[in-house]
């Protein structure tokens, strides 16, 4: 995607938004940024990044399988991501508890998912361009219908998150005390994995399965460096994710390089800059008196 860049930024934006594809990309990108920033914030807090990564990768066989069977790609993403969330939840609660032993289980699911994706790709011959898109994103191929689906799912996920947010925070920070206060932490574990699966499925459709982390991890992780107040941290996370997507779409439109690269680079740049800036002012954790 290359427009002709001038230094008149307003004119550039008007020029860019003359294309339906770019308008849809901005709409979809914004929806996904808000969703990923909020769900990702809890994921980072709960140290479930590996689970999030796996759920995103599972989108790849889902989409590839849908293409092979001639079904909707969106359907493929959601079916596989949500099913994988349930599988991880079931395998997790089968174990004793905690996040430590779940990584091996998740790794197994991830390897199997990737292998299945390759199988579907090879069953559906002549799919090579599509594979790159599934893995690294398809910002400009988004239709108005897709935007509607993304918005609908995002509204549902965010509504659920608004209801369970506070007990989820409690259970994530302080599981034993939360349970003693009657918070159903096991149920919340599963519900959160489903929300994470839905968010990963949404983000995969924009950034591709491999670059989901640009939106799901980097803005929340950056926000948590900036402030330790949960409300502000969530707001910073959303603001940053939206900014990252907008900047990346704008730069991507006027440069010969893929948008996925710009999303990741912008998000990474923000994180690196923040950790340098906050690292200078923040002292090394005081542990001496422990």
């Amino acid at each position: 995607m290359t427009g002709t860049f001038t230094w008149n930024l307003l004119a550039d934006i008007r020029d860019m938004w003359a294309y339906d594809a770019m308008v849809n990309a901005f709409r979809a990108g914004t929806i996904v940024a808000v969703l990923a920033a909020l769900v990702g914030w809890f994921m980072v807090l709960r140290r479930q990044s590996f689970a999030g990564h796996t759920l995103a990768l599972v989108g790849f066989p889902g989409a590839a399988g849908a293409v092979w069977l001639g079904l909707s790609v969106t359907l493929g993403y959601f079916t596989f991501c949500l099913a994988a969330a349930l599988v991880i939840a079931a395998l997790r609660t089968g174990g004793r508890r905690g996040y430590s032993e779940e990584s091996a289980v998740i790794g197994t699911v991830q390897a199997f998912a990737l292998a299945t994706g390759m199988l579907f790709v090879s069953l559906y011959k002549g799919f090579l361009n599509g594979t790159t898109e599934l893995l690294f994103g398809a910002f400009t191929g988004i239709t108005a219908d897709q935007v509607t689906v993304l918005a609908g799912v995002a509204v549902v996920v965010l509504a659920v998150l608004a209801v369970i947010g506070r007990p989820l925070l409690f259970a994530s920070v302080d599981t034993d005390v939360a349970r003693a206060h009657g918070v159903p932490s096991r149920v919340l574990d599963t519900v959160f994995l489903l929300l994470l699966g839905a968010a990963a499925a949404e983000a995969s459709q924009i950034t591709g399965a491999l670059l989901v982390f640009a939106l799901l991890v980097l803005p929340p992780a950056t926000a948590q460096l900036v402030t330790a107040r949960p409300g502000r941290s969530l707001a910073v996370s959303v603001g940053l994710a939206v900014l990252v997507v907008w900047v990346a779409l704008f730069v991507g439109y006027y440069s010969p390089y893929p948008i996925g690269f710009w999303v990741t680079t912008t998000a990474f740049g923000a994180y690196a800059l923040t950790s340098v800036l906050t690292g200078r002012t923040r002292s090394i954790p005081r542990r001496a008196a422990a």
Partner: protein
Amino acid sequence: MSTAPRQSAATRVTGARVPDEPTARPALVEIVDATVVLGGRTVWSGVGATIAPGEFVAILGPNGVGKSTLLKAVLGLVPLARGTVRLLGRPPGQANHDVGYLPQRRSFDASLRIRGLDVVRLGLDGDRWGLPLPGPRSRAAAARVRELVDLVGAGGYAHRPIGQLSGGEQQRLLIAQALARRPRLLMLDEPLDSLDLPNQAGVAALISQICRTEGVAVMIVAHDVNPILSYLDRVIYLGQGGAVSGTPGEVITAATLTRLYGTPIEVLSTSDGRLVVVGQPEAPALHTDRHPEHA
């Protein structure tokens, strides 16, 4: 403890106080002939004890004897195989809103970026569904959190990320969290563990002060009785085959503990009034590595 002993007489000891004795004040906690079996292993059996309102009670015993499990059984987090537990006259799990519980833990992860204030606040309304909208309720909650932070003397550091605080600072904030809903009973699981000696003394004094001034009963699990010895009303010494309760002077004696454990035990008293128990299955005064009790 008036029920017939199930275990051999050597391990079955009757406490100095008879719990079934009618008292003027109703018991906060009443444990009668309770047995817990986890994963096919009997953790303890035939345990009986009562806690009266406002009492400062320590639960003592060697590592692995199931002291934490006793707290969890009272909270209903661990099922009983036999016997009964009553908390405020109700079955386990039904009166937990009147209990402040501080589970055993090492500390919060250093990278956890949540303020001490937020952790205290979660103890107040963390179990509520929906968004915490600004309004009178939210202002009242914030005021209560400030009050709690002042009570435990954490004003200087409560606004910092909890992962960056020292063990003693974290423990004070967690005590504030446990007190958030004005409980009638505070259950503290090894709150002095992994603290250095001055911090152990400071936190122990704080707990005792809260017990007296706020009228909250305290059940504290400890593997070293000395930091809290001077504050205690009663101790419950736990063994696999039962428990003994009474004043520290009655219970922490060679004769009582030898009967409880069925193996010769000596209790030595140092010149500064510290007690050293020798010959238990595991030395309680030693800071051994914490081993996870049953999840």
